[in-house]
């Protein structure tokens, strides 16, 4: 038999010669990795900076300061500050008068145009002001009112003065008025109190995310309350209790498949089951939360099972060996040890649910709802749907508001994740 083994000197020579090549391969791999990470980081930076730059102005808007004569007789004719009385008052007329004293419009047409310069929310703003501070009656105080979105866009330079009047959204007359207001120093660029406190509105200068924000919180709460216990219970049952047989295998395969089902399908299912069969109302966070719970369940189950599987079997052995029952092993040992992993999965699921639009469109959470939902049974909408709706509107100002809302959504997401990480760190055993 011939010796197939190479002699040691020759072998070491071959190894030595191949070293350079192997090193180069290693380095190349490292380089590729760095390039990939570099790309990813660049994209991230680009994405975030573009969102931030576009969205940042959305938090601000132009206001006009007017000297309002708080005449109680006219604002609050019945004198009891009731909604009815304030509604019958002449709040918007007073605001218009204050405006007219500054810009002095001549003729009916000019007056009509001038009236539209201040946002149509002016009367509500005024009545809210006197409601919270009745001491204002009898005084003449300066109050800031939001300017109409077209003027806002003009002041930002999106609507150009050079454009011929016929192609412009605002007339020469209004531009003259704006110039006049500006000269008197009555126009200011300030942090918008509508973006955070306002709700859905057809007037972009008054639109805000409050309703959608609370809608999101309610929807996510319902989703979490359903999906987390259900998901953890399912995972525990499948991992710890159920016998491994054809049925559990089938269930497992189906859960994995469910995780890959497009979310809109869950929306259709929610529409068919919750709304058509059970006759629940449309547009409510309860149904939205249930649909999202169905969607996030597979994610939670899969990650919870992985977390349970990662619990060392020696701990189970120890507990069983000392005579713990199955329930005691699960609740005293398996779940506490798997909890950080389960929470991670839940947070991923929740983040997914927070950003979900499609299934909610199906169950009518896309409706135009001005009121902030107070309970899970009130119709509402959620942040991503609000963003989706705003992105659809034609007014220039909605673009900024959309970007601002995206920033808020991202902030919501990041704070949620931060909370989850904090929770996980706290629950993680230090030994």
């Amino acid at each position, binding site marked *: 038999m011939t010796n197939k083994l190479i002699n040691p000197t020759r072998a070491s020579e071959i190894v030595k010669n191949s070293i350079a090549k192997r090193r180069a391969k290693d380095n190349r791999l490292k380089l590729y990795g760095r390039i990939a990470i570099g790309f990813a980081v660049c994209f991230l930076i680009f994405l975030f900076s573009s969102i931030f730059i576009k969205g940042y102005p959305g938090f601000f808007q132009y206001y006009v300061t007017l000297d309002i004569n708080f005449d109680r007789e006219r604002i609050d004719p019945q004198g009891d500050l009731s909604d009815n009385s304030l509604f019958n008052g002449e709040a918007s007329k007073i605001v218009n008068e204050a405006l007219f004293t500054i810009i002095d419009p001549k003729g009916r047409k000019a007056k009509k145009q001038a009236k539209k310069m201040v946002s149509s929310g002016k009367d509500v703003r005024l009545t809210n002001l006197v409601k919270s501070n009745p001491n204002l009656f009898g005084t003449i105080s300066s109050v800031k009112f939001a300017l109409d979105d077209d003027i806002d866009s003009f002041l930002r330079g999106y609507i150009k003065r050079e454009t011929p009047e016929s192609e412009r959204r605002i007339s020469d007359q209004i531009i003259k008025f704006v110039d006049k207001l500006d000269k008197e120093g009555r126009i200011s660029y300030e942090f918008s109190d509508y973006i955070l406190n306002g709700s859905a509105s057809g007037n972009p200068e008054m639109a805000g995310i409050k309703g959608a924000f609370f809608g999101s919180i309610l929807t996510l709460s319902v989703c979490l309350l359903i999906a987390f216990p259900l998901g953890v219970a399912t995972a525990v049952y499948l991992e710890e209790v159920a016998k491994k047989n054809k049925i559990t295998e089938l269930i497992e395969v189906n859960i994995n498949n469910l995780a890959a089902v497009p979310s809109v399908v869950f929306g259709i299912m929610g529409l068919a089951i919750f709304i058509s069969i059970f006759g629940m109302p449309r547009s409510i966070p309860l149904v939205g939360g249930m649909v999202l719970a169905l969607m996030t369940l597979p994610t939670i189950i899969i990650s919870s099972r992985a977390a349970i599987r990662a619990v060392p079997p020696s*701990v189970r*052995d*120890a507990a*069983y060996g*000392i*005579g*713990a029952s199955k329930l005691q092993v699960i609740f*005293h040992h398996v779940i506490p*040890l798997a909890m950080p992993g389960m929470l991670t999965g839940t947070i991923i699921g929740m983040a997914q649910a927070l950003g979900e639009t499609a299934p909610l469109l199906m169950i009518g959470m896309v409706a135009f709802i001005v009121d902030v939902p107070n309970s899970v049974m009130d119709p509402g909408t959620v942040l991503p749907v609000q963003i989706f709706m705003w992105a659809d509107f034609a007014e220039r100002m909605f673009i900024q508001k959309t970007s601002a809302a995206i920033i808020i959504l991202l902030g919501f997401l990041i704070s949620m994740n931060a909370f989850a990480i904090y929770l996980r760190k706290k629950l993680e055993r230090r*030994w």
Partner: protein
Amino acid sequence: MINEENDFRKLDLTVGDVFSKDARLKARNVNVFYGNNKAIDNVTIDIGNKEVISFIGPSGCGKSTFLRCFNRMNDTIDTCRVEGKITLEDENIYDRKIDVVPLRARIGMVFQKPNPFPKSIYDNVAYGPRIHGLCENKDHLDGIVEQSLKRAGLWEEVNDRLLSAGTGLSGGQQQRLCIARAIAVSPEVILMDEPCSALDPIATAKIEELIHELGNEYSIVIVTHSMQQAARVSKRTAYFHLGKLIEVGKTKNIFTRPKHSQTEAYISGKIG
């Protein structure tokens, strides 16, 4: 009373004294299967009262599997099936009526790898008494914990840090903590599955000393790879080979005058 000798099918292989006059555990014709694989083949043996018996044999001979039959730990393995009869004080532990929870409280177990719970030293020992409701109040529990740790020879080393992590102890200390945990529920039998295989010689010596002492209080079944260890700690030794119980006898006799040729081959180092 059924005649002991006729209570089981004739043994075709085992030599030596499988029976004990003062038996606590009796295994009769035990077969264990993993799926279709027979891991334990017709084993019959008695475990005496307050007796230290060691199971020796080459790797994969089924000694650990057989050990785990005594507290039904094999139940946790889906594919595992046990046939035959094991009695604890004339009660078949594989009877349908038997609940494994009280059984495992009576038959404690110490595992190959020290496996304290990721909890404090105190909670590790107190866990058993807590779940079985053995303690009347906090003082009583404190007493149980202290005495268990003392018996396991760990009290002196840890009494000033009972609330620190059990997993922060050294390997040998962890294993003694596991023994203390087993003792805390006052078992009658303690099963030890290669308790020293992950430990250094000094820690091993301590555990062996401990086993020696505990042998006065409990029946101890110890599975070991080390023949020296078997010789040091046990009064009786059982030799397993390929799922069969080859020979049982006084430790002294097994190591000096084995009756079976396979036992002889093993202890003289020819196999295993």
